[in-house]
């Protein structure tokens, strides 16, 4: 008995268009999509592509978009590229909101600092910006290094010395030890003196970029802007216990970032766009491989949809997203 294979429906770009139209209609803003799936990182190569995408909208730095939403999903990448992309986006738009449906980590967090506001989807988040890049040679992609690790090791060395000296005093010995310097020498031997020096210098790179973006855009004109910027940079550079920590709405708000949690309808619409992008990437319609280790990101421009009938999204859309597309109200 022969069996016929069951055809698997392929995701289409029109489903993505429909999801983006629903989001732009709800937000009343055009949308720039920056989608970096797994194995895709923010790179300086992206500058030309994002510039071309913005130019495809018809906007120029002399004729800016009055209000722009930037949909960003990324695990991070090169902080220099993130800063440069942020400035390109701001060159083309008067006011920018970054929409983060799930995660904008590391270098993507830095990019968000160029927004007038960051809007986080339900359980979405950012991450610390304590990063630099090292090359492993050849064509291997450069890897980010957690600068906090160097700082933490130095703190560990100081704490070790303090605790040992306290114990020595308790047992009546001369309370002096060189354990801290021994540990630091060991670290320099392990990493290399020049490399430690490089990390130490570059630990302030993202802080410098963050300061520029926050002063120019997010906190520009605010009476407490300077203090808020200092707090944000201090917290995002040094305040987290680890680089991999997920900073949700509550922490970002406490750390004085201009951040809002999306209402349910907006969060569902943004997550629906992300679902369509992931489907298209899985089907390799977008985000094709650049090598066996890396894949291309997706950049797209979506004009603001009119207020006419919402478009239905994919069959696989979550029930609530379908309800939203049909004109339903958020509970």
């Amino acid at each position: 008995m022969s069996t016929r294979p069951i055809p698997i429906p392929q995701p289409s770009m029109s489903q993505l268009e429909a999801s983006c139209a629903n989001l732009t209609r709800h937000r009343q803003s055009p949308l720039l999509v920056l989608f970096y799936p797994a194995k895709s990182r923010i790179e300086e190569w992206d500058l030309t592509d994002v510039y071309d995408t913005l130019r495809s909208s018809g906007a120029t730095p002399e004729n800016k978009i009055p209000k722009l939403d930037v949909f960003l999903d990324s695990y991070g990448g090169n902080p220099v590229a993130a800063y440069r992309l942020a400035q390109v986006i701001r060159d083309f738009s008067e006011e920018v909101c970054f929409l983060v449906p799930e995660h904008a980590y590391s270098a993507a967090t830095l990019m968000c600092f160029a927004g007038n506001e960051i809007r986080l989807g339900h359980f979405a988040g950012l991450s610390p910006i304590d990063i630099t890049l090292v090359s492993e040679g050849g064509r291997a992609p450069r890897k980010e290094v957690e600068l906090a690790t160097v700082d933490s090791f130095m703190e560990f060395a100081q704490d070790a010395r303090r605790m040992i000296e306290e114990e020595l005093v308790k047992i009546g010995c001369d309370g002096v030890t060189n354990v801290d310097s021994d540990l630091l020498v060991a670290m320099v031997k392990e990493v290399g003196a020049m490399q430690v020096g490089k990390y130490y210098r570059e630990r302030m790179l993202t802080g410098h970029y963050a300061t520029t973006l926050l002063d120019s855009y997010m906190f520009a004109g605010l009476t407490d802007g300077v203090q808020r910027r200092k707090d944000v940079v201090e917290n995002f550079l040094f305040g987290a216990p680890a680089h991999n920590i997920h900073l949700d709405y509550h922490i970002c708000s406490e750390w004085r970032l201009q951040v809002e949690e999306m209402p349910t309808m907006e969060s569902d619409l943004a997550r629906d766009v992300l679902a369509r992008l992931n489907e298209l990437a899985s089907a390799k319609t977008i985000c094709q491989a650049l090598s066996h280790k890396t894949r291309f990101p997706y950049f797209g421009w979506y004009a603001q949809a009119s207020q006419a009938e919402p478009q239905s999204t994919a069959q696989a859309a979550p029930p609530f997203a379908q309800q939203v597309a049909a004109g339903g109200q958020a509970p």
Partner: protein
Amino acid sequence: MNLTANDDRVVRNEESENLKLHRQMYERRLRLLRELDGLSERDIADQANDPSLLHVEETDPAETEK
């Protein structure tokens, strides 16, 4: 005729424009990366048709380096 973004004809047109631009960008990136490797035009043409590049090593997104 005044078309809006809701009009099917416009949606189809925007779809093709976005995908067309995406493919152009992808091919440009691929070309730049391969030129960095010092490949000839023939090598680049061969690699552009390399079926193995249709596959990317799958990883858990949570394990993706930041």
